[in-house]
């Protein structure tokens, strides 16, 4: 049943996007860590996400199990092909995850946890970017190539840094929303720089992709396609300008829309993601495996259907509630448990 498989393709896309958005900003906090002062400021950064990081990371597990449940062939192919970058990402996530628990309970070992958090976040983000890049470039077929470092190419390194920059942008905008005074000022400044870097990275990655990937080029430029797709890059630029304006308002001393830049940054990610899907659809592993071919039998897809339809909206609802409980500036929370 093609429609059911397509539904799960959408669910997978949703899971990946939610992960990128939510863990994006909290990995980004780790990436921005070195730019903030040792104690007070880093405490603030950590506390701004310590109640949500766990829920955010769950979307990564959800993405993994949706792939496993609905498209087992793609799950098996992707995870075993990208063995090393995935393992490296997991090691990094372990370090940053435990840093949340131990940092606040430590005295002498605090610098180590700061390092584990920051390096772990940066490496995890970089690995995710590299995975993205190598999937776009195409996964080599056959098992012989497994011993090579095919996932380590100039393009994948570029996408690795691009994702890091994007996550850091999300984090800067999140901090802009969650803090006051010096930290907010600093976040606005970093946000503006990261906005420039992210847009630049998006442009380079897009041009490089279109130049090197024949299929993607054809998809974008054959017939009137480009006309239909041109809103994607145009809206991207408009949103970037709006985000810049809000972040810049801080310098003029008139901060009105502290939450807005975060949503602009999220929109940038959504647009970039849409551009990617346009280029790759309907492949899960480019030029090898479409989502229809990789789909589980109907009995499995149907069994999972009520679960997804009931629980995904429910999860979104209580996740939102959780964020609302801790709404407002971090300074206003009382100390934890």
């Amino acid at each position, binding site marked *: 049943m093609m429609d059911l498989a397509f539904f799960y393709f959408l669910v997978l896309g949703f899971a990946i996007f939610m992960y990128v958005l939510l863990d994006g900003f909290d990995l980004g906090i780790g990436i921005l860590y070195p730019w903030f002062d040792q104690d007070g400021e880093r405490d603030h950064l950590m506390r701004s996400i310590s109640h949500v990081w766990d829920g955010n990371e*769950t979307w990564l597990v959800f993405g993994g199990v949706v792939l496993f449940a609905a498209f087992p062939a793609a799950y098996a192919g992707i995870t075993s092909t990208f063995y090393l970058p995935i393992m490296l990402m997991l090691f990094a996530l372990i370090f940053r995850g435990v840093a949340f628990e131990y940092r606040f309970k430590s005295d002498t070992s605090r610098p180590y946890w700061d390092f584990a958090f920051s390096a772990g976040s940066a490496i995890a983000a970089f690995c995710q970017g590299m995975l993205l890049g190598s999937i776009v470039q195409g996964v080599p077929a056959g098992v012989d190539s497994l011993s090579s470092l095919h996932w380590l190419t100039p393009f994948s390194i570029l996408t690795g840094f691009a994702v890091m920059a994007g996550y850091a942008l999300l984090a800067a905008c999140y901090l802009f929303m969650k803090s006051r005074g010096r930290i907010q000022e600093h976040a606005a400044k970093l946000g503006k720089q990261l906005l420039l870097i992210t847009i630049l990275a998006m442009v380079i990655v897009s041009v490089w992709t279109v130049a090197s990937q024949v299929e993607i080029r054809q998809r974008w430029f054959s017939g009137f396609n480009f006309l239909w797709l041109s809103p994607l890059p145009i809206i991207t630029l408009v949103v970037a300008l709006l985000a810049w304006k809000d972040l810049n308002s801080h310098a003029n001393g008139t901060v009105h829309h502290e939450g807005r830049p975060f949503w602009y940054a999220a929109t940038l990610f959504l647009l970039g993601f849409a551009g990617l899907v346009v280029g790759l659809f309907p492949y899960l592993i480019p030029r090898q495996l479409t989502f229809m071919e990789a789909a589980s039998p109907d009995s499995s897809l149907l069994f999972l259907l009520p679960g997804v339809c009931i629980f995904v909206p429910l999860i979104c609802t209580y996740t939102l509630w959780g964020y609302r409980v801790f709404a407002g500036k971090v300074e206003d929370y009382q100390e934890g448990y």
Partner: protein
Amino acid sequence: MDLDVAILSRIQFAFTVSFHIIFPSITIGLATLIAIWEGMWLKTHNPYYLQLAKFWIKPFAITFGMGVVSGIVLSYEFGTNFSKFSEITGAVLGPLMAYEVLTAFFMEAGFLGVMLFGWQRVGRKLHFFSTLTVMIGTWISAFWIIVANSWMQTPAGYKIIDGKFEVESWMAVIFNPSMPYRLTHMVMASLITATFVVAGISAYYLLKKKNIPFAKKGLSMCMWFALVLTPLQAWIGDMHGLNVREHQPTKLAAMEGIWPAEEENVPLLLFAMPNMETESNDYQVGIPNLGSLILTHSWEGAVQGLKAVPPEDRPNVPLVFWSFRVMVGIGVGMMGIAALALLLRRKGRLYENKAFLSLVTFFTPMGVIAVLAGWYVVEIGRQPWIVYNLVRTSEIVSPLPAERVLFTLTMFVIIYSLLIGVYLYFMRKLIKKGPPSMEALEQQLIGMKAPGYALAWVKSLTTQEQNGQTHNNPTIKQGDK
């Protein structure tokens, strides 16, 4: 050196899953205890319950965190190291795991933030609701994981098409023959593990003469729990054994060290060194016929032995045999401690008997060891099959270069050794620091906008503490609304 990627992947999985299981086996039970204490506090207003909940939530948080980070590894290892396995069983196991994430994992993570950090952000009823949700989340999580594991042990409800599993009946998959036994046995094990962790630390405080009223309350409650839970667990374990005998006779034979293809008058072996070369036991010491009685509930009952299947279809007998004995031995020890506690309680010496308190302290980590041993029985006993009698473990490994798996295995050993050290270090630190004092609780209650009676009670206890009195008699009556 010639390295076998299959062996390395299996060692890696065994190592990472063993590390992981330590933490959920504590948190499932501890979440339950914390919810009980918080509920008791809301009902009785006795601040010692709040103190218990407030103290144990910290070890719970770091244990939970360790469980999360090590669990994420497992959800990807199926694919990275056993790609063939995930391809052929994906249609069955994938949806089960997806349901786990949808119904449990998100829920735990979503409400954990409020449970840990929300004391002053939400009302006390909503906070209790969050704690309950986290607790229920840990149970549901255990349910789906056990369902998936049990299906690999006693597969049902499937058909095989083009070498891949497809589901014919999801009811049969979920309620496969061994699932109910496995689930109750594991949830019980987790409750008992947490009970003995709390009891052990409480006994340690009593030995050190620190936090006395707090420790008395903790020890007393946990010994009552143990008195109920440990015999119940023995009974469930016995039923589980009968189920194994019916569905996985080879595993049972390995657990009991039975070699003949069929043996009557089976002895219960107290000691033996199963020898896979000679297909017999060395140095065997046993009680005649007791094995038959336990396994078949009849004096002469016959049991299928290891030689009923060819050697290549047998698991590693000594490992299964000894893991089983470690698990049962610890269980019997725990039952003994619970009985001893009852005896001492009647004599009024539960909190004074040094030998007893030392014994309980010694048993702090025993639940975890028993859980690990139990899982070795289950998992090693299933070998050489990954899906019992259907798919061999040797057939499903990813075609990876061996050095690559060796590299990640080494990394896991280094990182996890470091982490367990850090975990124990911080646990020790939390335990040394002890529970929040009544003064600290008072401050927190003010932050929580607690009702007047709760504050008044804590205040009275605070003054008592400052006057050097340690007895546990609230001057303000409960229910003083």
